[in-house]
């Protein structure tokens, strides 16, 4: 397993999933992937298909409509993979706790289909791109 983890930490391909976010965190994620923050030096690259992704960047609270699609995207991602919950809503419902359309925090939805899922949390509303980078790098160093 050693070489797999070693190469996974140096080449993380990300796929962005919006599970019912207000788009604030999505804008920050898209910002992050622009040349200004240069995530390519960590080997991070945006891919268009969950099958090729190593990390899911999940934003949003997990609405009733989106939660099933998020679980589908997680199942379609080739393991081993990481899940990053970006933003206060993805970390634990944020200000929408108990609202009518919220179907549970995102990490519970993913743990319900895969109890061994590796989930990292980047809080903030929205987290600055620097915070997201620091969160990703910290998570990779402890995985």
């Amino acid at each position, binding site marked *: 397993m050693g070489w797999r983890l070693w190469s996974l930490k140096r080449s993380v391909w990300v796929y962005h999933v919006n599970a019912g976010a207000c788009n604030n965190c999505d804008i920050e994620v898209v910002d992050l992937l622009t040349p200004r923050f240069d995530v390519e030096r960590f080997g991070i690259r945006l891919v268009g298909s969950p099958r090729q992704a190593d990390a899911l960047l999940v934003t949003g609270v997990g*609405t*009733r*409509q989106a939660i099933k699609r998020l679980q589908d995207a997680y199942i379609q991602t080739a393991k081993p993979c990481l899940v990053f919950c970006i933003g206060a809503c993805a970390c634990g419902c944020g200000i929408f706790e*108990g609202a*009518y*359309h919220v179907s549970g925090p995102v990490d519970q939805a993913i743990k319900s289909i895969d109890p061994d899922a590796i989930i990292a949390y980047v809080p903030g509303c929205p987290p600055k791109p620097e915070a997201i980078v620091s969160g990703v790098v910290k998570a990779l160093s402890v995985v």
Partner: protein
Amino acid sequence: MELDLQIVASPINGMITSVRAIRPRRWFIDCPAENVAAVCRFLFDQAKLRFVISTGIDAEDCFEVLHHFCHDPTGSFVTVKVSIPDRTSPQLDSITPFIPAAEWIEREIQDLFGIRFKGHPNPKRLILADDWPEGLYPLRKDYRP
């Protein structure tokens, strides 16, 4: 140059209850539910106001629907306020046939309050989930999750 809605809205004086400005450049027009389509049509076609958005309110004894218009040359906002006393099956004329931009906001009010818009060309569910139970309207005051 200021918008004087009293003068501009004089042709429809028979259909509305009152015209008032609660502060400069903020006008309210109260009208009964059956005249809402004609009043909005007048404001949109004749007075050349721009439709902005609509609002639904659950006042305890009735439902209220507000249609907001804007007069761009003066920066004035005009709101048409309609009150629907029937709480069991509230209905209102849709303004979408002549203001196509209102289609989605009326669908949203329909999903969240249960106010049925008569004459809406596409009254499908918009923002609630596909498996949300029928007849449950989240933004009503008596909604319990």
